[in-house]
Every structure is written in C-alpha cells, then in structure tokens.
C-alpha cells in the first residue's frame, strides 16, 4: 500500500469519523462539507490509484466463459453504440473484450450504430490493437465496418444480409473475400455478437432485430443506468451482461487473472472502480448518519 493510498483512506476515514461525531451529538452536517468530501472521495483515489478485488458475477462470467469456449478462429461482432458520456463505463468493457477475443485467436468485426461510436471505436483500434496485438492483421484478424446511419433499419438489414449494408469496410476496401468475414452472410452467422451501449439504438434493439430473429448468441455491455431494462432478456435472449464500471472491472479481473501476459495491461474499469466504490461507501455512510441524527432528535423530542 503506497503512502498515497494511505493518505486517501485517512482523509476519507477522518472525514466520516468527524461526520459521525457531529451526528452523534445531534448536529446536522453542512452541505458544503458533504460536497467537499465527495469531491475528495472521487479525486484522491483517481490520483493515487486504489484497487479492489473483484469477483465476477454470473452475468459477466457467462460472457467470459463463452469467449473462452469458442474454438480459435471464431468470428465475433462488436458494435460500439455509445457516446463520450457513456465512455467512462463502457469503453473499458469494449477494450478488454477486444483483448480477450484477439488473445483467444478469434476474429473481430467492429461496427457502430452511433455516429459518436466511431470515435470510441477508433480508441480501441489505436490504443489496444497496435499496442497489444502488433501481429494482428486487418482483414485477416479484424475488420472495421464503421458507422452506418439508419438505427434499427441497419439491424433489420444485417439480420438477413450483412454485405448489403457493408459492401466495404470503413476505408472503402470491399468486404467480400475478407478472411475476417469468411462465410458471413448475415449477422446471424457470427459465433457471438456483443453490443456496447445503453441508449437507443442499443442492446435492446440488437435483441429485437438481430438476436431474436436469427438466434445468434448475444451479450451486452452497458452503462449502469441502462442495465435494469436489459435484465428481463437474461438468460434466454441474452447470454450475459456487463453493467457499468463494475461489470468492466469484473471482466478485467477475470481476464488478467487467466492471461498472465496481460496482468499489467491498463485496466480503466478497475481504476475507476476505486473512486466509485469509495463514493458509494461515503453515500451509504451519509444515509446511515442522516438516520442517526433523525433518531436522536426524535428520541430527544420524545423525552422532552
């Protein structure tokens, strides 16, 4: 444990202890103090990285297991359906899945239903593939089909005819004959389809227009706010779900634990789980303290 982490814990612990002391004496805490503590709770673990152990939940584990179980050379479609607002939670999932898929020797087709998704997709293409998989070849191991406007319309078409919607990749190379897309006539021919997103169109539309009609295996990675609306589709229409930064952190943990060469890879999901976890704990503590004050004042009124 570094001095920075100790410092972080002392500051947050000290603040909570002070709050508790005030609360026990029946004094309300000033909002601005709460703001200050929340600010510090988020900022300090970001500056002095604080990492926790993560136990993959079944929803995440099933995606991991599926990618493990597929024979090398399987074809996987990854769709980036999110914008910078969702990126802190969703980009880490997309990055670690890309690593896992390529490390297992599968082939990837990248695409996006959101205009803003293209930029997010480029982050993976620039920061993950050339760094960790310099030997991976475009067209052979992966292909970037890019963004297509048309929302659900795109999905309807690729459910029956992928080349019709994507005659070329994002740079205009014809997709016909690309080894990465060998034998793919429709989105249903992939071995696994994963959509990263939380808005519309997103995983829900993928289920309705692609996974249900074609029966292809489908999984999703989504922002925490959107996870509950996807729960009803698990496990019948969706084999797994990564929800929020926690889902990303769990996947990173599972992957880094098994693939030793990636034990030191950047793990943004785990990194932001530090501040996130601390923030949740502080908020839970605030709820408890609020109730301490409340019951104290009620008892005082009762005895008075």
């Amino acid at each position, binding site marked *: 444990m570094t001095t920075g982490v100790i410092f972080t814990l002392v500051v947050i612990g000290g603040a909570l202890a002070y709050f508790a002391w005030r609360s026990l004496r029946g004094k309300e805490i000033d909002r601005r103090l709460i703001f200050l503590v929340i600010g510090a709770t988020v900022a300090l673990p970001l500056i002095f990285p604080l990492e926790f152990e993560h136990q993959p939940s079944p929803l995440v584990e099933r995606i991991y297991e599926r990618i493990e179980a597929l024979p090398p050379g399987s074809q996987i479609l990854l769709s980036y359906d999110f914008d910078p607002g969702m990126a802190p939670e969703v980009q880490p999932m997309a990055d670690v899945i890309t690593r896992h898929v390529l490390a297992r020797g599968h082939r990837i087709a990248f695409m996006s239903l959101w205009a803003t998704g293209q930029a997010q997709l480029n982050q993976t293409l620039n920061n993950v593939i050339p760094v960790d998989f310099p030997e991976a070849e475009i067209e052979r191991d992966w292909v970037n089909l890019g963004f297509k406007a048309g929302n659900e319309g795109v999905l309807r078409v690729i459910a029956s*005819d992928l080349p*019709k919607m994507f005659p070329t990749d994002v740079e205009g190379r014809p997709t016909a004959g690309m080894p990465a897309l060998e034998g793919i006539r429709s989105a249903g021919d992939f071995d696994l389809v994963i959509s990263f997103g939380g808005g519309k169109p997103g995983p829900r539309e993928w289920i309705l227009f692609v996974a249900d009609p074609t029966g292809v295996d489908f999984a999703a990675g989504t922002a925490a706010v959107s996870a509950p609306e996807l729960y009803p589709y698990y496990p019948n229409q969706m084999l797994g779900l990564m929800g929020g930064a926690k889902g990303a952190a769990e996947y990173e943990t599972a992957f880094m634990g098994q693939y030793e060469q990636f034990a030191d890879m950047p793990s943004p999901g785990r990194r932001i789980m530090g501040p996130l976890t601390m923030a949740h704990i502080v908020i839970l503590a605030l709820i408890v303290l609020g109730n301490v004050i409340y019951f104290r004042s009620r008892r005082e009124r009762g005895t008075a």
Partner: protein
Amino acid sequence: MPPAPGARSIASGGRVLILTLTLITLTSSLLATDPGPGSIAPPTLIMVNDLDYDNGESLTISWVPSLDDVPGQSEVVAYRILRSSGGGQEATIGTVLAGESTFVDQSVNRDSAYVYRVATIAANGGEGYSLPTDAVVPNREWLNWDLVWLFLACLVLGGSVVFFIETARRGKKLFVRKIAGLEAIDEAIGRATEMGRPILYIPGIQDMDEVETLASLTILGKVSRQIADYDTQLFMPVARSLVMTAGRETIKTSYLEAGRADAFNEDMVRYITDEQFGYVAAVDGYMVRERPATIFLLGAFFGESLVLAEMGNSVGAIQIAGTARPPQIPFFVAACDYTLIGEELFAASAYLSGEPRQLGSLKGQDVGKGIAMAVILIGVAAATIAELTGSGFFAGVVSTLQNVFTTR
C-alpha cells in the same frame, strides 16, 4: 377522397384477390423450369404478394431458389429481379445474394400493373431466367384491419371517459380522492405571499410536442389563477420559445379571469436557452439569488431533475414536483416536499379545476384501470392454470388475450 382504383375496403375481398393472383402466378411460373443444357437453373415458383394493410407502396417477390443454389457451394452468386410495367421496357430493380428467396419492391405505384422475372446469376457469368409472372397491381387499404383490437380498445376506453364526462355534466356527484401534492398548492402559494418572495414555475425542459409540457401548462393555468388572486410575484423561465409563448398566453388568461389584467407582465415568462444545462445553470443561479419561497417543477425532466430540486431545497423553498419519467421520479421524491407520480401529473389539472366534467374524465380513466386489472387477473389465472394442468383451452385464452393486447 375517392377510393383508389383496385382498393378493397373489406379484408376478405383483398385476401381473395391476392390468393387468386398467387395461384395464377404459381401455375405460370411452374412452367418456367426448363433450363437449357449447360446453363444454370433459374429460380422457380415466382410469387408476387401484395402486403396486407399497407398503403399500396410495396410488392413482395419470392421464389424457390435455383436447383444449382446449394449452400456451401458457390456456383450461384446472386439473383437478379427484373420488372416491367404497361408493356414497357424491362429493367433490373434489384439483386440479392444467393441463398435469398425474397425481394421487396418498394418503388411501385398504386395505379400500375407490374410483371416480374427473376434470374439466377452463376459464378461463371451464366444466367438463367424464369418465366414472367402475371401482372399484379399493388393494393391500397384504407383501414389496417390488424389493428381492429386496438381500435376497439380505444373505443371502450375513450367511450368510458366520454361517458363519465357526460354523466358528471348532468350533475351526478363523483368522488375523487385527495392528492396530497395538489392539496399543498394553496399552502405553497400562501407561504410565498406571506414571505414576500417569488414563486418559481419550471415547466420541464421539453417543447410543446411533449404531452407532459402540455399537462404542465394546463396546471400552470390553475396555479397562476390562484397566484393572481394573491398578488404574488411569479417567474417562469423556459427552455423553449414555443413554451414561452404558450406560457404567456396561459398566464395572461388566468390573470384576465382573476380580473387582474393590470398585474400581468410578459416578463414573468422568460426564454433562457434551449440547451439543457445552460438552462439549469441560469435557473440554479436564479434560485440562489432570488430565493423563491415556492418552486413548481412540473413537466418533462431528465438528468437535471435533481440538480434543480436539490438547489431549490437548499434555498429553503417548498417544492411541488411532478413528472411522467420513471427514472426521475425518485429524485423528486427525495428532494421535494410533494411529488406527483406519473398519472397524477395528468390528473392534476382536472383535480384542480374541480369542474364536474373534468372530474368525470378521472372516473373514466379509473374504469380503464379496472379493465386493465381485470384483464391482468384473467390472463395470469389462465396462464397459471394452463401451466399447471397443460390445458389447451386456458393456453388458448392466454394467447388470445396477448394477441389482443399486443400491437406492433
């Protein structure tokens, strides 16, 4: 409008027509299977189907794939669809990959007859043409009979609302329970008057094409009527220009009704900016600087709900909030004194008006609720019995109910 040529207003009539057309095309295309030696086999059984209940803007062409189109082999590359109309030139209208067996032609006109041929295209460049189909005219339907259940449901529900509006108009007394958030409006306005501080009315951040904004403006009508009586200062910042105009109109009407036209001032309603958080920045600033005693947050809210409500709470205002966005309701419940939950927002204007006809409409929507609950009860009971006993009858009941209540 005169009916379009060829249009049938009765479903069965339309169906018979399609069926006969299909049969004719079937027989003619059956004769088409005669590939010459060395050439590639053409597709067979070309069928042209007019989609039911559409606007007569598409025809679906389907076929049985060529005998040479074998999955896994690449002898056949694609199918080409050719079309001619009115004896004119035949033209290619589309190509689909091998393995496909349908094509939807969306470039048809209602008044024309079309003849189609489908050709197999081989990897070696060879082509095999089917015989032409008979002429087909796309059919327009004025009513979508798939939606007949929806239509009936509309009639039942709309009918019950109208029925109770009428009943109430004739003077029958109807009971309506108290809605706490609305009971508090009087107190909230009174408090602002006593304290001599303004009332802030926030109609959400959406435009007039959102029904929650309309509901909010209707409530504004009742609220500003009371404010006019009390002679308290009202301020309504808006994020949409149309809402500004409509809001002014609404408040002006209320002040006129209260006989306080002199107290009305257009600057009560101010346009800030269309940008969600630009609006929030300005309104939060207003709250801190002017310290309104009462804040109404009624309408369509998104991520800004808590940013507004907490700021309002911190300046000590009484807050009455309401929205139909389920994700934002908890924030209002946490930070406001009273929250109108979903349906209550839409019922509010009727409740506040106290007018019998308006209250009647609430009774009408309760009947709708009763029907929904009864259907759920029957559906769940039937589904459970079907699951436990395997009874086909009850399973049928469930699937019928689900069909009635599911629309695309």
